[in-house]
């Protein structure tokens, strides 16, 4: 599952490693860029590293200041960035997840504001899907250039179960609820949910709020607007969630089901459950663990439309993409930006990504997606995002870092029936107070 290093933020085992990294040595391993070279930090990934290296080779050929790829292990990567970014050990260009992963650095003035470079070069700016580019904005400014696959969250369906029960894939909320009832009568858990993690539950809240109230509801929350949590769309989304849980849509033991280790994927692929709301990496994961299921019985579609909701029916949520950011104090900032401009939307780079199963956030590449492992799935993901008027970054990444954990706690308490809408709103407001 290297092809899509999903949102699995960092390692569960960070404790010791993180502490060591913080108080122990700074910057270690990897070959450091010498003078007259700029370093490009990426995650170690046997699929994508060669594509990145090829892009640097193309750039370096004619360039005076050359780029050096520095692959880092995923474990501890965030901590390494965190401790080095304020020091002389900092990278020139580094891989990140946008949003919360770089907001602190952007605000501390450690990152290069890329807005002028994008605005001054419309061809470069228009090369990317606008919703994805916008999703990487911090305080209205661009700090990241999309560099990898898009990972929207959407529905997955087990068509074998759908066929056996004799129901159709739902497009609207009414149909969805109807399908759930029929699946329950047939003794099947309608929706697989890895409730041992709360970020999986968050996906439901994100989509419900988006469909019920539109993109502005969360935009206000993310901006810290007073009273934003009290928007009636939030209360309705929470009430809806609780009625889904109470009616058994997620089964009874979801709170013990793990995402890590593949338990939930197995619940879904084995037909114990019929639907799964997950990021697009679910396809790659299923292809790895249950190839037959992925080939024959796996279908996908957008999140159902809520008929009387105010949200755009095409809006998506999830992880827009991964970004490259440039450090402000880099000695080779110009070269770094020139590299990003030349390569990040180049035909060779995009084809390289498509070949390893990525769906890049680059505009007008529908035709070239035929080079993907599964052109049908790649085209679905691409269209889903290309058509979307907005692409909401996962809330836990989008809010201030210290507000994410209280929010996720409150969400899991909603699913456990410990908090109602008012309690959920209060928990979030208390955390921000």
């Amino acid at each position, binding site marked *: 599952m290297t092809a899509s290093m999903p949102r699995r933020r960092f390692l569960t085992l960070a*404790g010791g490693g993180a502490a060591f990294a913080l108080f122990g040595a700074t910057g270690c391993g990897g070959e450091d860029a010498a003078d007259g070279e700029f370093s490009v930090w990426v995650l170690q990934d046997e699929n994508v590293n060669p594509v990145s290296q090829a892009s640097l080779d193309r750039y370096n050929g004619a360039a005076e200041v050359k780029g050096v790829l520095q692959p880092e292990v995923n474990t501890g990567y965030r901590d390494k960035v965190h401790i080095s970014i304020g020091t002389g050990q900092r990278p020139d260009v580094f891989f990140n997840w946008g949003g919360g992963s770089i907001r602190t650095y952007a605000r501390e003035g450690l990152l290069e504001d890329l807005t002028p470079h994008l605005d001054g070069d419309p061809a470069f700016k228009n090369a990317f899907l606008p919703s994805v580019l916008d999703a990487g904005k911090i305080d209205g400014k661009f700090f990241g250039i999309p560099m990898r696959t898009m990972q929207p969250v959407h529905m997955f369906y087990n068509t074998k179960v759908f066929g056996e029960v004799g129901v159709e894939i739902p497009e609207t909320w009414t149909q969805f609820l109807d399908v759930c009832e029929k699946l329950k009568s047939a003794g099947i858990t309608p929706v697989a949910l890895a409730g041992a993690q709360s970020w999986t539950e968050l996906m439901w809240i994100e989509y419900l709020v988006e469909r019920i109230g539109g993109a502005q509801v969360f935009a206000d929350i993310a901006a810290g607007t007073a009273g934003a949590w009290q928007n009636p769309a939030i209360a309705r989304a929470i009430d809806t969630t609780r009625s889904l849980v109470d009616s058994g849509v997620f089964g009874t033991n979801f709170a013990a*089901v793990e995402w890590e280790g593949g338990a939930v994927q197995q619940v879904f692929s084995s037909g114990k459950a019929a639907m799964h709301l997950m990021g697009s990496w679910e396809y790659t994961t299923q292809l790895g663990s249950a190839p037959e299921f992925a080939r024959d019985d796996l279908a996908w579609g957008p999140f159902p439309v809520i008929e009387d909701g105010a949200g755009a029916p095409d809006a998506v949520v999830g992880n827009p993409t991964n970004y490259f950011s440039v450090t402000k104090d880099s000695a080779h900032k110009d070269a770094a930006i020139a590299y990003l401009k030349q390569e990040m939307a180049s035909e060779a780079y995009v084809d390289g990504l498509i070949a390893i199963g990525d769906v890049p956030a680059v505009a007008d590449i529908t035709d070239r997606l035929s080079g993907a492992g599964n052109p049908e799935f790649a085209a679905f993901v691409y269209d889903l995002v290309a058509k979307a008027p907005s692409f909401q970054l996962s809330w836990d990444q989008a809010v201030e870092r210290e507000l994410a954990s209280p929010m996720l706690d409150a969400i899991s308490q909603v699913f456990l029936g410990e908090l109602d809408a008012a309690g959920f709103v209060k928990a979030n407001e208390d955390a921000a107070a």
Partner: protein
Amino acid sequence: MSTAFEKVAAVRRGSRRAAATPRPNFLYILPAALFFGFFALLPLVLVVALSFTTWTGIGDPEAAGMENWSRLFSDEKVLAATRTTLFLTVLSWATQTPLSLLLGVWAAGRQRNRAVLSAVFFLPLLLSSAAIALMFHRFLDPNFGLAADLGPLIGFEDGNIIGTRGGALAAIVFVVGWQFVPFHTLIYQAAARNIPAVLYDAATIDGAGRWQAFRRITLPQLRNTVVTSSTLMIVGSLTFFETILLLTNGGPGIATHVLPFLMYRAGFEGYEFGYAATIATLLVVVGTTLSLLIVRFSGFAKMRSTLEGL
């Protein structure tokens, strides 16, 4: 130079005690003191200092006065986590102590089968906490783990042990017990073997049965060991956290949030190192207070030997 006899005599008389007792001078303690000072005391002082600042881990900490502390005392999650921590501590102590006491006394017997079984019981202690937690985590999967088969037998119809408040707490107590009972068993075994056989012989002559002997001789003789083991257990329970992180990740909801877990999250997920240091300081204070109380009220401080008069 005085002779050994004179030294003893001097101690007996209570005079010149310090001067006469031949103890190594302070240089001998220097390496240990330096090590302790550098790796224990200094970080402790730094943590306390950090608790009066805000720090994201980049740049310099900024003085924040009592801000973190007033937040700590008004934070409902800290209160809930303190309660959970104390609850888990008491429950762990109450289950591990009798188990390891009985196992230890049993294992103190010289029979060969006991030696073999003791060696087997000791095995969990050799595994890392993380490995143990991950292993049990697998077992507790409600659909494909042991919990799916065993859950219904113990009242969890759908295997949902770790997804319920009570089940998750019980699972933690069980796993931590599984891991640490062997260690305490070892302590009790060693202590039980040190009880002079003559006491049991005398008791047998007086007509005491096995229970009487256990109750009147073994338990009183193990008093100091109980205090030692309990202190280790209680202070250990206050700080154990990797098992919780890997087994329940604090869930379901906030049911298994303990103080070290909150500290970890504040520091390494929220990058609020000042607040994390405040929670850490609270833990140090609670832990120190508890161990002092145990030592004070158990009479351990007097260091009276259980062999006096023999």
